[in-house]
């Protein structure tokens, strides 16, 4: 612990001036890994001599990726999926914050609700999706519901654990200044739980992308999940299938980064 705190004291000075060339070093590392990945992919295609409809070469996929974005195949579908993910995440995360608070506050609520929460989480969303599509139609609403359901659990658990694990000594300090319940929540418990809650949101946002694709498979007119089905089925355009998968992956990375940026703004300047 002692060595730990020394290290921590040394950090603020280093924050302004990262170690010589560490940013460059990171860019080089990441680029090298990406190049290696693409080369390996190409190597497998060449050595295995796979046809395009099994495993297209990276340059074929890249070309299709660019053309799909330019000819308007990709954009409306990506926009639709993004909308579903963002709405579903917002609804699910908001509900989870409230539920997490209730679970943290009341042992009774936890006892009564947590078996259902875990059971709902253990039921594959893939199996629930057709039912949800049946209830809420094949439009935007059913996807938002699926995304919200899948986001709910990790955020609710993170909120509950975060609120519960607030240091008792800090709570006693706030009590000594006669903090009210609401003040405790807003000035102490929520800020203290924030790193954990944001961790739950990081997990949640990547799951929301999965939820949107599954929702689109269960029935939908537009979206990246629909495009994947089309590319594999009636269009039989496997490079387009790969280009769509690439778009889905990029969407997940971008959304994850967005959560990380929000998190850094909120909790980034702590010890």
């Amino acid at each position, binding site marked *: *612990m002692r060595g730990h*705190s020394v290290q*921590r*004291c040394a*950090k*603020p000075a*280093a*924050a302004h001036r*990262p170690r010589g060339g*560490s940013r460059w070093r*990171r860019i080089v590392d990441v680029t090298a890994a990406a190049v290696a990945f693409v080369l390996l992919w190409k190597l497998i295609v060449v050595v295995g001599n796979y046809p395009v409809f099994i495993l297209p070469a990276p340059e074929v996929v890249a070309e299709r990726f660019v053309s799909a974005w330019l000819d308007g195949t990709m954009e409306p579908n990506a926009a639709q999926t993004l909308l579903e993910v963002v709405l579903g995440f917002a609804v699910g995360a908001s509900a989870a914050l409230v539920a997490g608070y209730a679970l943290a506050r009341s042992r009774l609520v936890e006892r009564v609700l947590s078996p259902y929460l875990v059971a709902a989480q253990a039921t594959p969303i893939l199996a629930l999706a057709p039912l949800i599509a049946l209830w809420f139609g094949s439009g935007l609403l059913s996807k938002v519901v699926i995304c919200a359901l899948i986001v709910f659990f990790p955020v609710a658990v993170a909120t509950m654990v975060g609120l519960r*694990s607030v*240091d*008792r*000594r*800090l709570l*006693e*300090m*706030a*009590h*000594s*200044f*006669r*903090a*009210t319940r609401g*003040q405790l929540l807003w*000035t*102490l418990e929520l*800020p*203290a739980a*924030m*790193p*954990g809650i*944001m*961790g739950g949101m*990081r*997990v949640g946002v990547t799951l929301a992308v999965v939820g949107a694709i599954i929702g689109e498979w269960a029935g939908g007119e537009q979206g990246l999940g629909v495009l994947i089905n089309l590319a594999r089925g009636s269009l039989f355009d496997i490079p387009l299938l790969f280009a769509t998968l690439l778009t889905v992956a990029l969407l997940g990375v971008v959304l994850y*980064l967005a959560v*990380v940026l929000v*998190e*850094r703004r909120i*909790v*980034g*300047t*702590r*010890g």
Partner: protein
Amino acid sequence: MPERQVVALIGPNGCGKSTLLRLVSGLLRPDAGSIELDGRPVTGPDPRVGFVFQEPRLLPWRDAAANVAYPLELAGWSRDRREQQVTDLLGLVGLREFRGARPHELSGGMRQRLAIARALALGPSVLLLDEPFSALDALTRERFNAELLRLWERTETTILLVTHSISEAVYVADRVVVLSPRPGHVVADVAVPLDRTERDANLDVLALGGTASTIRRHLEGATDDPTREELSAEIGRQQRTRQVPIEELGVPAWFDPFGREDDR
């Protein structure tokens, strides 16, 4: 306990010193009997009392000024009044240049000074200190005792200090109350004879040494050796209440593949 006095509570572990402080502050309610301040009973956490805990207990996501302002915010002070009071308090404890620093950037002593400024924020008439300097090294502690007296002179507070150190008690206090454990009761109430202004010069002379040995005599036989049952109960309690140190709060518990560690 008369106004404007400095009283030290001394005794081995388990004699209820910290509990007594929490009763006075209203953080705990007495099972029997009552606590009165200026003739009015203490029924809950009381604005007339400022509490300095063993650890600084600062909020890691707030800077020094915002930590001192915390009780003022809770009490609903306006922004302008808060600003003025915080500046005064930071000046009082000599941390004015560090108002923007986060707790983890301050030394242990500075953090505890900040905690004292925070305890004084609402202008309490009684300041309670629960072994406030026990985490500091011996040299820093000696300086802090002098600093505490300086603060006491500049504010209108009565001080009740819990300590393990006889020399600390004799140096700081007008009266030293000696407690014994199991069951906790007052063994002695020793007045320190020397005038406070003379103490600095006479730190080691007979008068203080005599007082110290009186206190030491009263403490004889009062050990904190627990019985076997108490020991196992204590170990159980410690295991239940094991906590993450405050310094580690706010550190994200999840992986960050995007190099967050390097950025800090």
